[in-house]
């Protein structure tokens, strides 16, 4: 299966007059789990937000399912099956767990399959079912991340982008979250993962990109990442 689902070509993004991304080209094939690595401030979050349409790129092109979505508003991008689980989770803390999941299914396409998706999310994260009437803000960090992922899945996505799902979580919870991502991939979901947690993410990824100062500095399979001496020393801390 090497049919490209997401194709980003020569993307450049400015914050005001300051260039943040210079030249980002990457491809995620259907069914793949691709990880985007890089240090703080390399432009990982900006990349995801630009692909989603939250930020408007200065130049370049984003195509999803062979459709040009560069100029599409972020809410419409979600509605056609590309969903972003943001950094810091972005939950609606004063609303209940179930309300958060319902909001994840706001788009028409997702509402049609609401019941089906809700039961599969509850099956994936039984704790969310137990806590469905509780305010999202009262959950533990790990549970909140599971809710954020579950809410992303409620949009019935073909592809899920996750921005640092391991942020602020204890190692044992991180491995739980990554196990879930692996499981989702096995079910055929396409995933683009942004992470600083190199080792864990390379362990579940099919391919990876390294982002450095707003440019793609390296791309390859996990083995190629691990085999590259200069990468190991400079960026990966392996």
């Amino acid at each position, binding site marked *: 299966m090497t049919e490209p689902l997401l194709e980003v070509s020569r993307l450049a993004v400015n914050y005001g007059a300051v260039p943040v991304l210079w030249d980002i080209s990457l491809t995620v094939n259907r069914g793949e789990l691709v990880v985007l690595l890089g240090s703080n401030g390399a432009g990982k979050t900006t990349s995801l937000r630009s692909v989603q349409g939250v930020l408007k790129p200065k130049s370049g092109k984003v195509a999803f399912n062979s459709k040009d979505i560069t100029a599409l508003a972020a809410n419409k991008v979600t509605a056609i099956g590309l969903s*972003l689980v943001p950094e810091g989770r972005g939950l*609606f803390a004063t*609303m209940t767990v179930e309300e958060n999941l319902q909001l994840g299914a*706001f788009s028409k396409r997702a509402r049609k399959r609401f019941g089906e998706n809700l039961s599969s999310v509850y099956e994936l994260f039984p704790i969310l079912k137990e806590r469905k009437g509780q305010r999202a803000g009262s959950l533990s960090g790990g549970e909140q991340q599971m809710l954020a992922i579950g809410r992303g899945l409620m949009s019935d996505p073909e592809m899920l982008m996750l921005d640092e799902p391991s942020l602020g979580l204890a190692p044992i919870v991180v491995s739980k979250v990554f196990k879930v991502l692996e499981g989702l991939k096995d079910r055929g979901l396409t995933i683009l993962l942004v992470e600083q947690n190199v080792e864990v993410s390379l362990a579940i990824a099919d391919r990876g990109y390294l982002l450095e100062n707003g440019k793609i500095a390296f791309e390859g399979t996990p083995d190629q990442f691990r085999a590259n001496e200069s990468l190991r020393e400079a960026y990966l801390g392996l």
Partner: protein
Amino acid sequence: MLLAELVVLGLAYGLLFGVLALGLTLIWGVMKVVNIAHGDFVIVGAYSSYWLFVLAGVHPILSILFTAPFGFGLGIIVYLGLVRRVVHAPELMSLFLTFGISTLISSLLLYIYSPNQRAISVTFPSINGLGVVLPGNVAIAAAYAVVVATLLRIFLTKTYWGKAIRAVTEDSSSALLMGINPEAVSMLAFGIGVAIASSVGSVVMLLQAVYPTGGSEFTLLAFVIVVLGGLGSPFGALLGGIVIGVVDNVASLYLPAAATPAIGFIILVIVLIVRPSGIMGAKGR
């Protein structure tokens, strides 16, 4: 007993004011715009009901069936034509704009209807119970407020669009990622806010005379209640309304009439010193 009577009266007025403030807080919550014209939309509703009554004999309560949808449509037109342009601008810009809308509305009403006060006399029989007498018109106003607050609550907690309003209020960038169009939600919230203001105007016709420039009093009242209750909190708005209503009425028993309007503001100042985010407001804002 006079005191009990004033408390009940204050409760009834407070519910009505609280619902008026609900409209203001809904708009603020979604788009962070303080609608200075809120009270002027009350006057628009009041005049609509006045003329419907005088010209066609439509009962003010029945005319809500007109003023509410009319206000909704008017709110959407004002949002699309004007407010939309300042939602992302600094807050001062939206203050200027809604102040301008307020002046425009009151001037137009002044031009069309003259500065004369207008009143209609429709009276409902008063309600007696437990030694307390509540004027029928005030009871009807309170009933209206309860109905609107209940409908709004159902809307906000049971429907997709109501939840979307709450989601945008809490975190608009996250709401965008859910596939929610913040523009559509803002339009909806502004429409509902103005529909509430304008239907409150119909009820106000049962209680007092109105005049074209009287809107600013309602804006100020609603603003005090919203800040008192906590910006963006619907329940806080209702609670704030009741506090202001009761205190205002009870104070009239002990203070000269000219001094009672100050009481609400004194409470506001005290609450803001003790709890800057308002009674139900989020902490640490």
